């Protein structure tokens, strides 16, 4: 049984002990750099609660990640004392960053971090290194000079976390991870707010047996921005459906595809790390590469079907989704696409659709 600290309580404790905490919006950012400045990034993806105030600032057709994040920010939570960081992920978050900074106004600094888009080459790599340097300079204005040793230590820690995540991911794909769907994604998401040392301890505490654990469950890969809602994960558990692999922005898309060499030069390491992340809709790289990657993961995990968990109004996902579904169907892989508003229970219709997918996959196992 894992002992994962509750997000809110953990962050409150951290804040009470004088920790600097930065609210970070989705999704890709050089977390090691923040650690090196003694800042704890607390990621804001889908904070719970009703959306009350954000509706006065955003149209009805804006995705719930953006809305919920703004709702959280508008509450001006005390625990966020080192500012907010908006990585450049999509058009909506791009505008939200400037809306919060320039129009709404918050009592803490607002930072942004551009993630290059499209297909990458040498020019992109050089640029990424440059913006890491710029980001360092901006943080130094508030937090004093960066201690290079600390950055090096942070990179080593990040490297260990990535390596362990990769091992756990592979173990899950090959039935060597004794965790339910809910437990697995809880573990993954704990990295969004725990101190890196605490997170690494948690990851290391999971034992990976050498031999696969017998598994007669139907096998599914989940793709999208966020893992399904906990109620849905439990329902998958109840139905004996195992989410053996993920292609989630909040999951595997944030871990390098392969194990990197231990960091020597921190800036080089951070650059290398970014360019080794798996394909992702929000980076808008090649569709063929993304499809090849999905196929490889399906093969490695022997997933029989794919669940697309699509955040409502998420343009980056919606464009790719259509083409991925088409390509997967052509290869005969069953696909289930579900829209999510992030909160709210599992509807009867959702349950029926999940059951239907489960039955289809089980029938295929039998035949």
């Amino acid at each position: 049984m894992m002992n994962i600290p509750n997000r809110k309580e953990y962050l409150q404790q951290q804040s009470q002990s004088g920790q600097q905490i930065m609210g970070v919006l989705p999704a890709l950012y050089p977390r090691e750099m923040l650690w090196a400045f003694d800042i704890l990034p607390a990621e804001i993806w889908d904070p719970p609660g009703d959306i009350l105030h954000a509706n006065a600032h955003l149209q009805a057709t804006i995705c719930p990640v953006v809305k919920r994040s703004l709702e959280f920010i508008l509450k001006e939570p005390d625990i966020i004392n080192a500012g907010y960081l908006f990585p450049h992920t999509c058009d909506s978050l791009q505008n939200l960053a400037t809306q919060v900074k320039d129009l709404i106004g918050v009592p803490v600094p607002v930072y942004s971090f551009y993630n290059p888009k499209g297909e990458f080459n040498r020019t992109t790599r050089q640029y990424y290194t440059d913006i890491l340097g710029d980001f360092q300079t901006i943080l130094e204005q508030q937090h004093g000079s960066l201690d290079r040793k600390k950055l090096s230590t942070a990179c080593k820690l990040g490297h260990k976390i990535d390596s362990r995540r990769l091992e756990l991911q592979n173990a899950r794909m090959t039935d060597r991870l004794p965790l339910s769907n809910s437990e697995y994604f809880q573990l993954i998401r704990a990295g969004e707010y725990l101190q890196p040392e605490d997170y690494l301890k948690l990851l290391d505490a999971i034992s990976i047996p050498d031999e696969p654990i017998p598994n007669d469950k139907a096998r599914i890969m989940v793709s999208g921005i966020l893992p399904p809602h906990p109620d849905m994960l439990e329902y998958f558990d109840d139905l004996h459906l195992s989410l053996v692999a993920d292609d989630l922005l909040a999951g595997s898309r944030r871990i390098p595809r392969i194990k990197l060499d231990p960091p020597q030069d921190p800036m080089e390491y951070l650059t290398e790390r970014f360019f080794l992340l798996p394909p992702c809709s929000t980076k808008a790289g090649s569709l063929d590469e993304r499809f090849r990657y999905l196929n490889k993961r399906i093969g490695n995990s022997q997933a029989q079907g794919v669940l697309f968990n699509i955040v409502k109004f998420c343009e980056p996902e919606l464009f790719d989704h259509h083409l991925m579904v088409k390509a997967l169907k052509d290869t005969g892989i069953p696909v289930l696409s579900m829209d999510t508003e992030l909160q709210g229970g599992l509807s009867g219709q959702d349950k029926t659709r999940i059951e239907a997918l489960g039955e289809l996959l089980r029938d295929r196992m039998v035949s």
Partner: protein
Amino acid sequence: MSLAKSLKFKFMKDYGAPALLTFQNFKKRKPRPIPEAFGPPLKANQRLKEILTRHYFLSRYVPGVKKVAWVTSGAPVELLRAFDFYTIYPENHSALVGAKKQGADYCGIAESDGFSQDLCSYARIDLGHMLSGKTPAGKLPKPDLLFCSNNICQTVLYWYKAIAHELDIPLIHFDAPFVTTQQTEADVRYMAQQLQDMIPVLERISGKIFYLDDLEVILKRSMESSQTWGTILKEMQAKPAPMTIFDAFGHLAPIVSLRGLPVAEDYYHILLEEVQDRVARGIGAITEERYRLIWDNIAIWYKVRYLATFFAERKMNFVSATYTNAWAETTGYLDVKDPWNSMAKTYGQIILNNNLKHRLDLMKSMINDYGVHGMVMHSTRSCKPYSVGQFDLRKALNTELDLPAVILDADIADERVWSEQQIQTRLEAFCETLEDQVSAT
């Protein structure tokens, strides 16, 4: 390049297109009566129509003669012109479909194929066109190259990737980092380098060698056209304004899609001359201009006439828009002596790639310079970069300038999103507030 095709293209250019235009003028239906609220129409309208008809007409004969590129409105097209690509602007084409009230039809085709209804309607229309071959322009040539920049939105990159994938053609993307506070040296270096990296690829696709001198000539022309367009817009500071922003939405087409070509440069001189003449003679776009408005966001293409008439009948004229201004705003950065860096600055800082403080400041100065009494904001379902933030922009303008404003929830080209009753009610309430406020001052 085939000789027969080249000869045919030349023939169509020299004889076919003029003959088509003569025929069109000859068979022209009786013009629709102009509502009393409007002043005399611009003579340049006819020339504009000819230019666009000719461009689309000739595009049918271009395959095999020139390479065809589909380009996004914010992409640095000057570079492509140096390789003599024939350019088509899918956004313009989608706007045309929208204006013909056929947007829902084309969107429906893309949706039946599985594209979500929540995607930008320009993209859905274009995908609908790609899947069906349908177009109100007769026929569009298949692209040899797709060229896009995310300086207007990330959406275009997804949209062009989908086309590149479907048609199996190369895509060149110009990555333009969003300006959160100000453009950094790294941003400029990155963009300038990308442009230079494109040269060998463009040489390979076009089969033509790049000459810097050619680019300089094109940049100069582009600069000239954008500056003239900016001067035309400035003429609308006159009272009464010589044209409405709804006219400008149409006259924008050459600066968007023919930028860098002599035809655009010549056209804007003609338009400028006419507009200046109207100002000198006090001819307004509407017969009585009592209230002056600013428009925010892209046009609602299928309701341009409705909105123009609604406001003109209430003696209200749109004299400015953030949208039309976009193709004049950053041209000042262009410098033929420093093409790469200056293109990076020009294209990297356009309104949709710039922060909302910049947009607020720009709106404030436009409101001031154009003597604006009120603002209409189109909150378009399609466009996140234009729409996210509008609620707070309105609040800021209202607080700082006491400017009445209304937000219309609609879409640029998908007419299914339009709710006439709701919009009419909102507009009437807005007009009342505006009239009261102006008469009280």
